[in-house]
């Protein structure tokens, strides 16, 4: 019953890299329309967690289900990926293709859209991220902020129900961070379900319904942004917040 299910449901998720346990018994439920921000020190497993949601990292144990589709085999993984868009820290645009081709590749090859339909859709999303005039350039001709906005548009072209952002502004020059965050905030306001891994606490306050703090592969604390920023419960979280909010 996809309509009734939670957007994302994770139970007892474990992930190992050899002897190193990257995720420890993660339980997490995200509702439709909910905006979740995940933060924590590097190596805490936040990226691994969201990469497990669309199986870019294979889980070792536990249950993951996305929009009612349980992740059991490669078929269900394909089905889940078609519901989930992802934006990477390093943009990962296809450098040999133009911006427009970057956006139309998935819709044409995976969804079977005609070139004209795919291009119309691509232009619509390029408008949304405010760079329709760059459609015929190559990614390397764009600034980092523009590239990341193209990456967001590329994901949106697949019309996902859920968006995952893996440190979307960490590779950007400071003056380009806000143009990318603005686009993500727009999406959030339109009701897109999203999990955002980020250290941008201003963005978190503005856009998040729920904060999750992770450390050493486990979820240490979770709560509304107010609770989280004003009255963090755990010592570890207080320490982390004082470090990143110091400046």
């Amino acid at each position: 019953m996809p309509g009734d299910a939670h957007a994302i449901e994770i139970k007892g998720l474990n992930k190992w890299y050899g002897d190193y346990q990257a995720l420890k018994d993660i339980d997490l439920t995200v509702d439709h329309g909910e905006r979740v921000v995940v933060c924590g020190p590097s190596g805490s497993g936040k990226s691994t967690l969201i990469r497990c949601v669309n199986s870019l990292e294979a889980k070792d144990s536990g249950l993951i289900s996305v929009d009612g589709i349980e992740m059991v085999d490669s078929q269900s993984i394909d089905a889940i990926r078609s519901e989930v868009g992802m934006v990477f820290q390093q943009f990962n645009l296809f450098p040999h293709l133009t911006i427009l081709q970057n956006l139309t590749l998935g819709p044409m090859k995976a969804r079977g859209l005609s070139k004209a339909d795919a291009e119309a859709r691509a232009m619509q999303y390029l408008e949304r991220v405010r760079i329709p005039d760059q459609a015929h350039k190559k990614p390397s001709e764009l600034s980092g902020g523009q590239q990341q906005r193209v990456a967001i548009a590329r994901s949106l072209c697949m019309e996902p129900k859920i968006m995952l952002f893996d440190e979307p502004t960490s590779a950007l020059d400071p003056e380009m961070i806000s143009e990318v965050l603005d686009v993500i905030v727009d999406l959030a306001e339109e009701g897109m379900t999203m999990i955002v891994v980020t250290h941008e606490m201003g963005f978190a306050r503005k856009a998040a319904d729920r904060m999750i703090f992770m450390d050493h592969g486990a979820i240490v604390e979770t709560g509304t942004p107010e609770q989280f920023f004003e009255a963090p419960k755990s010592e570890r979280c207080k320490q982390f917040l004082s470090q990143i909010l110091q400046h």
Partner: protein
Amino acid sequence: MTFRTALLLGSLFVLAGCSSSGNWGWYVIDPTTKNGASNIRFLLNGFGATILLSVIAAFMSMAIGMMVALPGMSSNRWIRLPSRIYIEFVRAIPLLPMLFWVFYGLPVVLKSIGINVSIDAFWGAIITLAISDSAFTAEIYRSGIQSINKGQTEAAKTVGLTYGQTMRYVILPQAIRRILPPLANQFIYIVKMSAFASVIGMQELTRRANELVVTEYRPLEIYTLLILEYLVLVLIISFFVRWLERKMGSDESK
């Protein structure tokens, strides 16, 4: 290119200079005499076979190399294993013994399993060159494909592309630019190794030179011309590849 041309002219000069010593007998390939002209024609007629042999073998090697390279990068070790074995095994066999085995041995093996084909010198040479080279081509593909950032594959997955689509539209177009220079190297290698086909009777450049030497007793002049024939061939290939590299933007440092 100017450097290469200068080198070519320079070596010609040196060789021509030797003729005054009296040890050279260029008459054997002097195009102004009837005999010399027919000798030259005989030698140059080997170009067709050498080129055809090399080109077919190179394309077969590229196809086999891809079929070996792709499973060789699987995350499943049992899929990876046959490809590894193929590469290690084929790479270890010297070309000449493999040529003998394919030409004299393979038909016997095929006959024993009920396939009755004779392998002529042409196809024997092509099969040998293609297989022998494919192990190297496979490794070139692997290095090229693995040099493409893992994020490209991940991004392709998130926009719903299958493995085949990811390879075709995302990875290979980027990898091909990087592997063009080493691939061209391999092609030049095939052209040169095709000389071995002469020992099983293939009428290519080297075989013809050998045959002429036997009748004319002028190895120095004939083999000199033979070397120049290969030089010209390889220079033409180099030139073509440079042009292709420019066109495809292989030089990413620009």
